[in-house]
């Protein structure tokens, strides 16, 4: 079940593995408001109404229970809260779910039955699930389906969020989260923090910090006056971008450490040029499947660019802390001594194996190809049973209105990447730039043809965009990428309604109005 993911574009080599499964007889369902290039490989495409994911998941759950297909043994042994879940999904009959999602009841039933009866089944998702104001609810609704059927904690089954950046997993693993230390140890836990304080030789602040969205809110209140931005381009990547730029430019001090002179760097008081981590330095990154792999320097950094670690160590020295000059392997060994799930991953083993998947707690541990095997242990390895967490359908925060009657969603093109700072460097024969894709009937109603320029407005602002007819979209739904902010400031349009649990903005659902622009001289 590929849900809210266009992996064919965004994770092409992962999609090769999925295609191999299809070639070997696996059945694929694609759940996405758009009939994406991934959905075209599916046995069944479920083009649900944008933002009705919880409704569909609850409807599937209800149907599995009603048809007697729930895995009662697994639920009893490994989960808790089933009765409350069952009660919560009871209203989501096939008919009601069909109304909320716009999907034929028969398709929902078929998906529910196939998923429940499959020997092994996976639910894979990306930002179509998580870039919503109720992102965590979406994830919980999918987790409940795995608990209902036992498709979790065993080879070939599971819940698979596909990570979008080469080291976004590793960043979290290393403690780049407001409330965590490396290895997901809680910063407000005295014992965990004490371990780090002992090795680092300083007291650490026990109060969890702020995630990016809260930082911007704190900037707005004047509580954050300085920012040190490393390898991020928030002046292009944030939703409701005009607002974000205003906040960044209002800071007393903005320091940017990056390999590019990004829009954010252009706004900075100080720019620290960094080397390209994956091609000019040694270290590790961690992929979506928790595989820690080595990156290696192939070319020297240009000019004054320096390794991120060198820059940070020099900053520490200016602040009176001598951190020495450890090499990457020594830094890695320190991490291993503090993060039990990395302990078994010696530098030599990473070299020999071509990468190990955490948890890997000992030098003779083979690494972990999948998680949550404990759900099948007689004693659950002493853990609490996995909780069902009931959630209800809400739909997108920003409703369609007469003034803004079209739905806008965003995503990625195959040959480009995020705000384009990296992918803009090569000349792609299949690149078409940021256009507003829409169904031909919507375009016709507006008097627009393929290639025409239009003024596109949301409650936050307006941009000019080229129209591209794309009938893989349903009527009423429009789509754009945001890879070319210098040409089209697409994030002027996006909604900054955000999930209080995850801090992620609802890039996937804005309301817009489209008006033809008459070309000069026409």
């Amino acid at each position, binding site marked *: 079940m590929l849900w809210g993911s266009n992996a064919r574009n965004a994770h092409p*080599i992962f999609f090769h593995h999925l295609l191999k499964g299809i070639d070997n007889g696996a059945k694929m369902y694609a759940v996405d408001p758009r009939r994406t290039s991934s959905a075209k490989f599916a046995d069944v495409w479920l083009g649900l109404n944008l933002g009705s994911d919880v409704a569909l998941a609850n409807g599937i759950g209800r149907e599995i229970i009603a048809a007697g297909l729930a895995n009662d043994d697994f639920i009893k042994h490994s989960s808790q809260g089933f009765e409350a879940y069952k009660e919560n999904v009871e209203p989501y009959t096939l008919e009601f779910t069909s109304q909320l999602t716009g999907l034929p009841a028969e398709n929902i039933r078929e998906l529910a039955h196939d998923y429940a009866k499959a020997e092994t089944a996976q639910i894979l998702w990306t930002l179509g699930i998580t870039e919503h104001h109720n992102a965590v609810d979406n994830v919980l609704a999918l987790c409940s389906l795995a608990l209902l059927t036992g498709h979790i904690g065993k080879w070939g089954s599971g819940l698979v969020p*596909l990570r979008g*950046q080469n080291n976004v997993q590793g960043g979290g693993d290393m403690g780049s989260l407001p409330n965590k230390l490396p290895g997901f140890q809680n910063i407000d836990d005295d014992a965990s923090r004490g371990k780090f304080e002992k090795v680092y030789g300083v007291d650490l602040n026990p109060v969890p910090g702020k995630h990016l969205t809260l930082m911007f809110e704190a900037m707005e209140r004047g509580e954050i006056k300085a920012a040190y931005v490393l390898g991020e381009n928030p002046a292009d990547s944030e939703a409701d971008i005009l607002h974000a730029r205003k906040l960044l430019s209002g800071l007393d001090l903005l320091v940017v450490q990056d390999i590019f002179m990004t829009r954010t760097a252009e706004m900075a008081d100080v720019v620290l040029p960094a080397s390209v981590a994956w*091609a000019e330095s040694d270290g590790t990154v961690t*992929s979506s499947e928790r595989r820690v792999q*080595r990156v*290696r320097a192939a070319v020297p950094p240009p000019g004054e660019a320096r390794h991120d670690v060198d820059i940070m160590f020099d900053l520490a020295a200016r602040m009176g802390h001598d951190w020495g000059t450890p090499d990457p392997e020594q830094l890695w060994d320190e991490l291993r001594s503090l993060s039990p799930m990395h302990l078994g991953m010696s530098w030599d083993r990473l070299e020999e194996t071509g990468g190990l998947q955490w948890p890997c707690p000992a030098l003779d541990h083979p690494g972990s190809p999948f998680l949550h095997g404990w759900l099948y242990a007689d004693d659950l390895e002493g853990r609490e049973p996995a909780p069902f967490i009931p959630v209800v359908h809400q739909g997108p925060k920003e409703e369609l209105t007469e003034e803004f009657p079209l739905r806008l969603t965003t995503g990625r093109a195959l040959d480009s990447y995020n705000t384009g700072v990296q992918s803009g460097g090569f000349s792609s024969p299949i690149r078409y730039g940021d256009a507003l894709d829409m169904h031909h009937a919507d375009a016709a109603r507006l008097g627009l043809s393929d290639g025409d320029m239009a003024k596109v407005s949301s409650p936050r602002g307006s941009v000019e965009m080229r129209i591209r007819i794309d009938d893989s979209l349903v009527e009423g739904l429009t789509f754009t990428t945001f890879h070319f902010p210098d040409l089209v400031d697409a994030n002027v349009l996006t909604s900054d309604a955000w999930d209080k649990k995850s801090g992620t903005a609802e890039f996937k659902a804005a309301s817009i109005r489209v008006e033809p622009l008459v070309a000069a001289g026409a």
Partner: protein
Amino acid sequence: MTVTETAVTISVDGNDVSVPEGATILDACTAAGIDTPTICYGPTLTPVNACRVCVVELEGSRTLVPSCSRPAEEGMVVSTDSERVNHSRKMVLEFLGSGVDLSQADELNEWSAKYGAQPDRYDNPERMNEDVKIQDDLYVRDYDKCVLCYKCVSACGDDAQHTYAISMSGRGFGARIATEFDVTLPDSACVYCGNCVAVCPTNALQFKTEFDLREAENWRPEDQSVTTTICSYCGVGCNLELHTQDERIVKVTSPDDHSVTWGNLCIKGRFGWQYVHGDSDD
């Protein structure tokens, strides 16, 4: 998850060799330390038996058999160095060499030397004699160098990419690899993953960076080094082999024995490195 492997034992040039069930005669030859010439074979591709250069003599078989596709069976007796085998391999290499420009097919030329193939002993062989197709900035197609091994078609199709942008077209001397209706590559279904280029044994398909350096007579494999690292784009963790010359990346490949990529990449991983050198498309 444990896979129990049954071993199969065959005789190769008089020595017993054991390989797992399902392995090919080629695998057995490799296990026995015997170097076998191959052209259309690829470790990640389904055998298509197009080139016949890997043939061996199998006791009880009327014809020579392609070792790359024939599964090893218990008790097989195989000869790899008989006069018949060597003659057949020599002829294959000679025929290919006579009609095709093998000037950049280093491995093939080594085989030709080993088997004493003399492609130039044929007068006026039929050649394509067409211009190099340069239709974009990422790769070029020079079908004068194509031996029709089919590997690019397999990589573009069922064996990896499932894009099906290219296929065999025509018959006999007119046989060639082509896009649909022979449109230019940018107009075809091609998604520029470069997985076809990665498997090409003759440089008929080559990256534009390599082509340009060769044109400038500055392609120096002896001065190049290869560093394995991880792609900087999405979270899949594809291994990249950065081929560098004069402190610049000149080509990107991926190891075909790594479980993440099996040698394949996408357009971003294969070509999205220019920014490392401060180059921009703008």
